[in-house]
């Protein structure tokens, strides 16, 4: 039953990717896609394929990052936004746009550095707390770091209002101007981290049961939570570097995977890894077709899909509570 569910999810992802490759403002004759020098080949290889790969990689990274953070924090509402990874990344991007706009190709590395800096700050603050549980301290530290970076973003945008145009597209998230070269390093990070996530699925199950049970099974839960959060930040930072601050996918996808699989085990991690890319591809497809030939940020549709589903999950949980 579980394997059937995963096979169906994989099939839906493949179909969605194919639709995204075919759909767009330029109608492609797919018989000519692999003809060197043809318009179809150029559009496919330099626009459609990088965009679909970017959307799929971002979906994979944010979804697994969200899952890791929800397990690590013991909080179902945790996501890269909550622990300040996204705002740290956003601040680094804004800083970069203010002071080094001529080195635009280095922007992804600034986003990644900001994400990691925020993560390190969150873990340092949360490790100072000995009275709170590790999950509570991580969330509280995340909220504090989030507030700090949002305040810095506001300050910088007030002092340098001219850069807000570039920043606003980044802050919503999307794939309109993906450069294939900007995908290579993040893709390597995301794919290796994803394999690692699937490999450590049994550890995630133990950590979900709380610090006391995890300790009794021989784990050092605080240390494991920190490592999971670092891995989550690494993945989210890698994705933010080319996709911007795409929200909701990291929050919604773990719940969707949990809902579809019953929760726990490797099947939930794999379902998360399949559902995240599907959701982001769907958002991006809507973003570039609904107002074609114009385009909206994919983040707008991610929110449109994510919010109703999240409300449904919360009301469902409230009925159980």
């Amino acid at each position, binding site marked *: 039953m579980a394997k059937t569910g995963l096979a169906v999810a994989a099939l839906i992802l493949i179909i969605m990717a194919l639709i995204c490759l075919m759909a767009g403002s330029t109608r492609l004759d797919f018989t000519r896609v692999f003809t060197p020098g043809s318009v179809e080949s150029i559009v496919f290889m330099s626009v459609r394929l990088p965009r679909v790969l970017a959307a799929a990689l971002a979906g994979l990274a944010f979804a697994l990052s969200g899952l890791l953070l929800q397990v690590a924090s013991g909080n179902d509402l945790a996501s890269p936004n909550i622990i300040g990874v996204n705002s740290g990344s956003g601040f680094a991007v804004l800083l970069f746009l203010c002071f080094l706009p001529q080195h635009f190709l280095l922007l992804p590395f600034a986003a990644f550095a900001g994400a990691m800096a925020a993560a390190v700050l969150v873990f340092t603050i949360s490790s100072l707390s000995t009275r709170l549980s590790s999950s509570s301290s991580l969330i509280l530290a995340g909220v504090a770091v989030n507030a700090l970076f949002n305040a810095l973003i506001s300050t910088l945008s007030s002092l340098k209002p001219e850069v807000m145009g570039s920043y606003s597209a980044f802050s919503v998230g999307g794939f309109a101007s993906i450069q294939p070269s900007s995908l290579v390093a993040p893709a390597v990070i995301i794919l290796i981290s994803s394999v690692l996530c699937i490999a450590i699925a049994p550890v995630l199950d133990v950590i979900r049961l709380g610090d006391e049970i995890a300790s009794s099974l021989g784990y050092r839960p605080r240390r494991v939570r920190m490592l999971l959060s670092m891995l989550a930040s690494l993945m989210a930072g890698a994705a933010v570097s080319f996709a911007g601050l795409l929200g909701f996918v990291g929050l919604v996808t773990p719940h969707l995977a949990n809902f579809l699989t019953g*929760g726990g085990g490797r099947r939930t991690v794999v379902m998360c890894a399949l559902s995240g890319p599907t959701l982001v591809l769907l958002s991006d497809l809507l973003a570039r077709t609904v107002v074609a030939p114009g385009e909206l940020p994919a983040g707008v549709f991610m929110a449109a899909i994510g919010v109703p589903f999240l409300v449904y999950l919360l009301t469902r949980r409230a009925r159980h509570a």
Partner: protein
Amino acid sequence: MLEVRNLSVRAGKTLLLEDVSFTLNEGRICALLGANGSGKTSLIRALTSYYPHYQGSIMFSGQELRNSSKREKASLHALLPQDLPQVDIVVSSLFDDVEGGTGVLDGLGLSRLAGRRLISLSGGERELVFLALMLSRKASLYCLDEAEANLDPRGRRLVERSMERLKREGHMVLASFHDIPRALRFADDCLVLDHGRLVFSGSVGDFRESGLATSLFGLVERCFTSEDGQLVKLLLEACDEDVGKGGEA
């Protein structure tokens, strides 16, 4: 055998346990007693590796707990914690990596819960699911932290039967209780904590004689004659006058 010597545990500046020493033997149930905040949960946590930085020693058959590997720790102790996780997963998923799967649920007559989501269960049902999860593990010491707090009489009996089975199988059982008369009815030994210090360690009979039931918990022993002429001793909640008499009641 579990030998604890001069165990002290701190959380920040707070001293949770101070200079605690005792021994637990295989095939016996030990009741862990104490008022709220006396350190019962801290002691159970210390024995189940929750506090990696403790002072003193915790020796399982001569093996120091802090020097044990992850795999060894998992075979030394199993825990039913007081605060149970609220995880949104199907109950049977908890038993995915357990030898025999959900068979242990069936053995406790809880197979009806296997397909339910954990968050949809009542507090008592969740307690029994985690009791089954604890029993599914092979360990030397089984710790139950106020396992009966949320349970109805049938659930309490299930916990008692489980502890008695573990005892028969030669394991060590340490269980904390607030219902002291109930604990003393089926425990062999007891440990009593007060403000993080161990004030009693010994058999249940010695505890009854010690007068601590009255001085610490406000209980008095009363003798009754049953219908068939047998003398029955019961621990009852004392009134203020009884407490004033100390251990003489």
